[in-house]
């Protein structure tokens, strides 16, 4: 509850346990769990400080001068270390804390103009820190604070929009405002390839799935008055299916207004599949399409063209299965075997804004503004 500055915590296993943290006049801007689940980190208003509340010992620690940026706190995958971006005297710093006792391990400055975000590699040994979009600069630090490498692709134009580490920490994908994704390798930290996102897909080896509307088939004999719920929902919702389009395909391309800040262009979303084989990207200039690249061949594999703008997508944590939502009431699933569009069986509108996979890969939570529903995926029986 950000406005009141209060955080409430309940336990799933012991329903009697309840905790309430009140920040009071300090205000609350963001709150998150620590990876061991025993501490809560609250960021106060105006990013004055980060308070670490311990749920077991009721002790409090403070982290001063946190940076007000998009990704200021990053935890390693094994939950051992936490990196916090700080800014003192107009200079950016990164502090690395040990999560078990919140001890400061390393504190070093970064050579950035205005640090925008930090992210750990999945192996927990490398920290990527990148600059604001006015400067294309990404710095790679080792766990002990040494600068391993710097990468700059170009000057003056708008720079990095989003980054993603591959699950094996082998690759670092950088999406930038010039509609390209550059991939660095972990041995030399140099670019091995760049992926372009043109408005026309011309290569004959890529498959383009286009979502088309399918008129609902309603048997007129079964129509009854008043109409049943299922019938009503099927009448008013349009079914859709995927068609394979022939290359060359030209996608809907928008040019954003040039005099506004944070233009809707460039690669806004990047995600690697858990088996390291695929990379899914979204070019904000072509908002209806999801591009899936084959990392083993470093080529474009599939393009999914939707009817509405893609809101978010996420890979299944266990297998190369991608779930996409576009703000309509359908969730779309893609895997190398094919893709399918699934209608959420609810009466009324259920506009899916975001989704989240369960860590076992068996179910997906679909969230709309006020509701959420859980979609279970049947597992194929092994005979």
């Amino acid at each position, binding site marked *: 509850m950000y406005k009141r500055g209060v955080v409430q915590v309940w336990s799933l296993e012991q329903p009697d*346990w309840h*905790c309430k943290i009140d920040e*009071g006049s300090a205000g609350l801007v963001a709150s998150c769990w620590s990876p061991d689940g025993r501490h809560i980190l609250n960021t106060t208003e105006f990013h004055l*400080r980060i308070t670490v509340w311990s749920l077991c010992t*009721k002790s409090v620690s403070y982290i001063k001068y946190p940076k007000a940026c998009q990704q200021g706190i990053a935890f390693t995958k094994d939950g051992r270390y936490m990196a916090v971006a700080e*800014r003192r*005297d107009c200079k950016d710093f990164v502090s690395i804390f040990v999560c078990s*006792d919140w*001890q400061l391990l390393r504190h070093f400055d970064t050579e950035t103009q205005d640090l925008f975000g930090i992210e750990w590699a999945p192996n927990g040994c490398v920290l990527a820190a990148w600059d604001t979009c006015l400067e294309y600069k990404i710095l790679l630090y080792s*766990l002990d604070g040494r600068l391993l490498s710097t990468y700059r692709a170009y000057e003056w134009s708008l720079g990095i929009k989003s980054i993603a580490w591959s699950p094996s920490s082998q690759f670092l994908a950088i999406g930038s405002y010039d509609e390209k994704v550059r991939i660095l390798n972990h041995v030399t930290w140099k670019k091995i390839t760049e992926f372009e996102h043109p408005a026309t897909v011309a290569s004959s080896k890529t498959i383009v799935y286009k979502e088309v509307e399918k008129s609902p088939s309603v048997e007129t004999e079964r129509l009854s008055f008043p109409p049943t719920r299922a019938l009503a929902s099927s009448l008013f919702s349009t079914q859709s299916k995927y068609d394979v389009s022939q290359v060359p395909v030209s996608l809907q391309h928008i040019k954003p207004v040039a005099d506004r800040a944070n233009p809707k262009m460039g690669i806004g979303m990047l995600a690697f599949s858990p088996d390291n084989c695929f990379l899914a990207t979204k070019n904000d200039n072509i908002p209806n399409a999801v591009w899936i690249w084959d990392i083993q061949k470093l080529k474009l594999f599939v393009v999914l063209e939707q009817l509405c703008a893609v809101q978010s997508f996420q890979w299944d944590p266990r297998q190369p299965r991608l779930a996409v939502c576009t703000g309509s009431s359908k969730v779309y699933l893609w895997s190398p075997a094919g893709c399918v569009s699934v209608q959420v069986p609810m009466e009324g509108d259920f506009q899916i804004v975001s989704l989240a996979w369960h860590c076992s890969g068996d179910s997906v939570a679909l969230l709309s503004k006020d509701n959420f529903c859980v979609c279970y995926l049947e597992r194929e029986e092994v005979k």
Partner: protein
Amino acid sequence: MGDWKTITVPVLSSDSKNIFHYTSEKKISPPSMNSQVLRLPLPSSKSMHSFFSAFCTEENIEQSISYLNRELTTLGFPSIYAESKGQELNLISIINCMNELLVLQHKNLRAQEEVEMQHLKLGSDMDHLQNCYAKLKEQLELSKREIVGLQERDRQLQSKNRNLHQLLKNEKDEVQKLQNIISSRATQYNHDMKRKEREYNKLKERLHQLVMNKKDKKIAMEVLNYVGRADGKRGAWRTDKTEARNEEEMYKVLLSDYEQRQKQLLVENAELKKVLQQMKKEIILLLPPQKQKPKERSEDGPVLSDLEEDIGELNKENMWELSCETVREQLTNSIRKQWRMLKNHVEKLDNQVSRVHSGALNEKDVISREDHELETEKLELEIQQCKEMIKTQQQLLQQQLMSPCDDDTTLLLQDCYLLEERERLQEEWRLFREQKKNFEKERRSFTEAAIRLGLERKAFEEDRGAWLKQQFLSMSTDYKHSENVTTPSAFLGSCDQDNQLVKSTSQRKPPCMLSGPVSGEPCQTSQYITRNSSSAASKKPAGDSKPNQWVESDKEETE
């Protein structure tokens, strides 16, 4: 051209005009036309008569004769007068002179013709040359004009080029200027940003101070129903030891990551080296053996022997475990050398093939074709023989099968097979029925056990409640105490019995899984009961048994 020789004839008194006229006419007329010249003698015969009459009349015979004589002698002809007598004419010499004059005339005419011909030719040549000259002059004019035009164009293009260069330079300068402007603006913005940030920091500090002052009253964390940690430990204090430990751990993490990466790289390296070794061996095999020309042998020989030595050495040393520079270089160099040799070899073969294709070696082709044909014939024969053998064998087999041709024996044989199968099926049926019976029994026992356990649990709960009540009511009487002590132990005993039962049933083959959810419940309830009776030991076997059951059920299903 106009070289006219007008021979001035010595003018005689009276007929001079005529003669002069005539001779001049005679001279003028030939150049006009050939035919006129040719025709001239003919009409001249007539005019000759008139001419003779004009030149020599009866009065001036002597004069004309002497004139003629003079002329002839000057021309080199012998005199027409006879030698001794002054006035007598020598007819023979006159005739000779006439003949000579005629011949001369003919010659002159021919010469004239020739000259005229030449003249005509020269004239036409002149015309031709004049035409050529005129044409060339025109062409020259044209080309001069073209040159002028091209020069103009060249100048225009050069000026355009210069303009474009200038524009390019201007654009570059502008770009440079804009970049400078951008960078200066960026620095200005940065400076302004820093200033604003400092102000902002000051505000934050002030706010922080205010907030910290108010901290004690409002900011708090309330935990309701605090659950103590199982082992009662508190959070650890921060000391130098912990710092050192953290550093150690961090370095361990880093080192383990590097070691992992190094291992991966070593494995990759080893594989690549193996591949290279294999490639090397195969290339050596592919290379031509040492049967060829001595020239090639001298080239290949030492190299191959070197290679063999190399192979021997390297294999001895177990190459892929060494990773020093020299060994690596040796390997790559040797592979490069052999690859080059292989390439040369392939190129030579290609050349040979192309030469063969272009004709020349017909005999070889014929021979090879014949060989091919012979071989194909042999193969065909073999195939036929094999086919015949197969046919005969099939026939024999069929005969064997059919030879106990009596109906009885065949029926018996068929019956045998059927009997065997039937017996097998019956056995399986029996087994299946037995198993089914066993499953039913176990299911029944499980349900009974479940019911019993439920009942006992209820009873236990009731007793417990009663016991607690009694305890509260009467605190002193020992007699009642001893009674109450026995009852819970009795129930504990029954609980143990149930545990044993659960264990035994879980160890048998799991019919409960196959017969569905009904038997699943007793397993689950038994688990719940065991947990409630809080014997930690029983938790584990029950927990283990369940996965065992799953595994065994999978095995059964696959069978």
